[in-house]
Structure formats: C-alpha cells, structure tokens
C-alpha cells in the first residue's frame, strides 16, 4: 500500500525520486487518481506556496518541489485521463516575443500544473500569432504572458491586441507577470489578472476560472 503521507512530504521536500516511486505504488494499488491528487498532491504544493510566501522557501526549493510534483503526476496522469476527470483549467503560457527569460515562466507553469491545471507551455520568445494559434487549437481558457525586461513589456500589449484582432480575446482570460510588471501596467494593457510571484499566479488562475 502506498503511503500517501510520504508522497505529500516528498513533494514539500522536493524529493522527486520518492514522490515518483510512491505515485507508481499508488497506481499499482489502483488507488483513485483524483483523490491522490486532490487530497495529497495539491495540498502539498499549496504548502510549498505558503512557505515561499512567508520567505521560508526560495526559487531553488520551489523548483525542486515542482519537479517532485511533476515526477508524481507522470504515472498518475494516464489514469486521470481515463477516469474522465477534468483539469482545473487549461492554460497557454509563454514568454513574449523578444524575451528569452523563462525561469520565472517555467516556475509558474510547474506550479499551475501542480495546482491541477493543464498547461500548454509555448516556451520563450513567443510571437503573438503562436499564442493565437495555441488558444484556437487547444480551447484554453487562460493565456499567461511573461516578460522579464522593461524593453519587452510592450510585447505583452502587442500580444493582447493581437488576441483581440484575431477575435479570441473574449474567449480567454489573460494573466500577466514578470519582474518589471505592476498591477498598474496590467490594468493599462487590459489584462484580467496580474500576479507578483509564481505562487500568487496559481491563486489568480483559480480565481479567474471560478469567475468564469
């Protein structure tokens, strides 16, 4: 019998090996995938987020936990799909055109995944057209845009305008983030949400989905 408490702790400790092993045991024991995720894995990531918020954890710990989460999700995901369970939401994420920084974006992507979202990561230096194509082909309900440089911030605005021009802006919620961004900037460019850090992004995404 898989010890799910160990799984929870392994995710908090960033121990991918143990997390993956326990998850495989859980699958072998035919445990309910949704229960494992919702009662152990998501709460573990929430705890990681809490520790990050109160400055106990920093980027490396956050990333290790996200990796442990990923390792645990790997064997469980096929079961989840088979059970017909729906993800919390579908997010298309990317760093905007002209900007190659993707540490922050990767972190947000991992945490969203850990938070039960299906994430389509387009990478860095992503053109507006690629965002539009991804939204249309995946039916995502959230687009998350990242920029780390003051000089690439205008790319966020361009991307949002391109979404409008392509007629898909109304179909999705837009979240923005990155070191030089502010709530004020998010308001100016007409984004639906801004988050100051990776863990707040998960909260913001949940709020957007809840608001429909």
């Amino acid at each position, binding site marked *: 019998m898989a010890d799910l408490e160990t799984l929870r702790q392994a995710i908090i400790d960033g121990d991918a090996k143990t997390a993956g092993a326990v998850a495989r045991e859980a699958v072998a024991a035919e445990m309910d995938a949704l229960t494992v995720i919702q009662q152990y894995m998501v709460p573990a990531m929430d705890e990681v987020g809490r520790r990050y918020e109160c400055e106990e954890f*920093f980027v*490396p710990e956050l*990333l290790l936990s996200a990796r442990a989460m990923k390792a645990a999700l790997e064997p469980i995901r096929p079961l989840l799909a088979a059970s017909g369970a729906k993800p919390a939401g579908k997010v298309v994420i990317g760093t905007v*055109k*002209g900007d*190659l920084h*993707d540490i922050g974006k990767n972190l947000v992507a991992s945490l969203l995944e850990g938070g039960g979202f299906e994430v389509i990561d387009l990478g860095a*230096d992503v053109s507006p057209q690629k965002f539009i194509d991804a939204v249309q082909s995946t039916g995502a309900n959230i687009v998350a845009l990242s920029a780390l440089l003051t000089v*690439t911030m205008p790319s966020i605005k361009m991307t949002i305008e391109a979404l409008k021009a392509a007629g898909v802006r109304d179909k999705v919620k837009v979240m923005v983030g990155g070191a030089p961004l502010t709530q004020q900037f998010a308001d100016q460019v007409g984004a639906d949400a801004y988050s100051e850090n990776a863990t707040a992004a998960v909260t913001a995404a949940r709020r957007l989905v809840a608001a429909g």
Partner: protein
Amino acid sequence: MAEYVRLKPEPGRTVSDQLYQLGLEFPCGGCSACGGCRVRLVDGEIPITEGMREALREDELAAGWRLACQADAAVPVTLDIEQWSARILTDNTSVAFEPGEGFGAVMDLGTTTLVVELVDLATGDIRGVLAGLNPQGRHGSDVMSRIEFDLREPGVLCEHIRGALGAMLAEVAQGREVKEVLLCGNTAMHHLFCGESVEPLSHVPFSSPALGARTFAGSELGWKAEVVTFLPCVGGFVGSDLLAGLVACGMAESAEVMALMDLGTNGEIALGGRDGILCASTAAGPAFEGGRIRMGMRAGDGAIDRVEATEADAMRCHVLGGGEARGICGSGLVDAAAVGLALGMIAVSGRLNNAPLRLDGAVQLSQADIRELQLAKGAIAAGLEILRRQLPVEPDVVRTIHLAGAFGNYVRVESARRIGLLPSWKAPVAPVGNSAVRGARLLLLNPSRREAMIEAALRRTRHVDLGGDAEFQEAFIENMRFMPPGR
C-alpha cells in the same frame, strides 16, 4: 610603470581630501588603523603623523611611504599611487611602451561611474584622475532602463554623457592640449555615446550591427581634444571595457588559462588564454554595490565593510570611519553571509534562522536581502561555470582569477568562496583594480601596436549568450544555494 599624481596645496582641502576625490579609498575609513591606503611620496614633503608611525615600519617611512588618509602637505607633492591600480603584467614583453609627445586621455564609461585619466604620452605617467557619476543615472540605473528611455526620447542620453565627459576632460587637462582620447564601456554605453540606435539591444538576440570602434574629431563632440575613439565591443552587452580588461591582464597572449571577473551592475566575465577566450555578461544586479539591499550603501563612512566571527560565536562588524554603523556595503554583505553560514545563522538554502539578521546598531539584513545576494552570486557563479564547461577546461587548469573593480579590491576572497560567489578552484584570486582603464591606457601608449592588440583579443574571444541557455538557467538555480564547504 609607476603611476604618479602631482598635487598642489589647496586652501581648505588636505592632500587626503584631494586623494579621496581622485578615487583612492581608505579601507578603514581614514582612522589610520589598517595601513591599507599607503602611497609613496616621490617628491615634496608630507609630515609623518602618529598614526602613520603605528601603521608603518621605520624603513617604510624612510622609503617615503605615507598613509593617504592622514596626508597633508604645505608644498606641492608627487605621489606614487601604483598600488592603487594594482599590477600591470610587467613580464609581458610583447607590450612595449612607445614614448610619444603631449597628452592623451582614457575614459571608462561605466553604467554607474565615470573615470577620466590624463596620461603623459612621453612618460606613460598618469597626470590626473577624475571620477564621477554617470549623469544618465537619473534615467534608470541599469542598461535596460537606459535603452528603454533612449527609445522613448532619442538623443537625450547621448547629449548628457558627451557633455559630462567633455567637462571632466577639460577639468583634468587644465588647459593642456589633449591629442587623443580612448573610451571604453559596455555595448549600451558605446551605442548611447556614439549615437547608434539601441533598438537592436532591446530584444533577442541582442546583437547589434554597430559593434565596431568609432572615431570622432574632438570638435564634433565639443571636446578640447584632437581625436576621440570609442574602442570596439566584443558582442552582446560585453563591450570594450572587458576588451580592455583582457588587454590589461594579457589574456589573449597567455599560455595559461585565466579568468577575469568584473562584478559591477552588469557583471562581465571572461575565461581562456591564447588558444581561445569565452566571455559573457550576467545581469547580476547592483547587490555588490549595496543596491537593492534594504540597508545597502556604497563603501563610505558608516558602512559595515567587514564582518568576523568572535570566539563566542557572535558577529563582530567593522564600520568604515569608525563611527556608528549606517548601512552595509558589498564586501560587508559577502562577509556577513559567510560568517552567518559558518555560525549556523543562515541555512544552506539561504533561510535565516532568526530574521532579520542583526549586525551592528540598527543595521540588519532581512530575508529578502539574503535572497537578493543569492540571485546575484548565483548568476555570476553559473556564468563562470558555463564558460568553463563550454571552453572546455578542467577547474584545476585555471591558473589565476583576476577580480576587477573596487568591489574586487575589498571583498574577502575567503568569504566570497564560502558563499559560492567565487568558485572553489585552486587558482589564486588576484584583485586587479580598474582593469578597463589600465587596458585602455596600454592601448593609448602603444599606438603602432594598438590595432594588432585589439584584433588579437577580438579574434580569440567568443561571446556566449547566457540569456537563452537552458544549461545556464539550470546552473543559475543550482548556484543560488549556499553549498556546504568542500563542494
């Protein structure tokens, strides 16, 4: 090559004041405690004070050594300040000095600070030095915000910097005719000075078509100089300041592999030798200059510049100037983190056991300050590691690590190694002062060999773009942690 300054008595300004304004720093804050600000009297007379007697030996005093922090004189004096600009590789026979005539100048156009040196082309002596702040600073402290500003209001920054450097040149030349000026600076500074478009520097792949040297007639700039040349950039944001640094430490001719690290706001690093050099810039941020640290400040009176562990496992802080602590500078920050780790006050993850970490008086470090340091040192350590892997070269093959800049002069190497800012390689770490200015001066003093020297350094050097490198990002995150000793 000795470096001389000549000073005249000025009412209300001691020799010590004048030296301070020339950029000499007094490591202990001017209380004659450390002897670290020694200069050698070549001509004239500087009375020996009680403090000098305590800090210097009898034979040193007889040889003309004095403490800059306590120096005053009633007559004009000439001082040798060679130790302030560290050593030029004197064994480098390929760099011969060609005596010329008249005066020349070299300028280091930094993102934050400006340095202008007047050089006697006949003797190679420095006849005056001026340091100042880059007036562009009010439009953003880092290169990216400057670029953004210039895109919005083209030409303003160009006008500012040309005006400021022209005024400094006039002040340092004091009516003497200047034949030639050589400038160095990072790629953004180069473009903004030369009036090149910074648009290519505002997005990936950050490659500009205008990296080459630019020569102006002094009159074009409104300067009192015949010819002004901005030295060529290396690539990406790595500019002629690093190129000049490579020249200063002779990297392109070196049979042994060496590293050069300039830990300013735009941290630039190079690794290699005559068989090839790799260089990169890592946006380390201003933490080592006291920036973005809540109680951070530049190394001046009231700054904690050194922290040690006492026998009772507590922290003992040294304050520049000896008064009450007002803040902490880069070297103090690195020391505090190293001591905090040794005493178990900071975990390997960077977590403070008891936040904030109290240092001295009202000065303390918050958890966020430690995080800022982790980001800065992580970026630099990861950058060097990637260059090492790509060169590729084994750690033990690297023979010397040259550490440029004022921070490099004052940081305790042992502490920098403990926190992982510097690698645990066997190579000794040598502070080299302002290697950009020294390299530019070497080029100024060797007009017939200049092109070949620049060409040799440029040809052997390849710029590595770390921004889009997945391996770098991995190493960056790994290096954010404080590795336990021995790793």
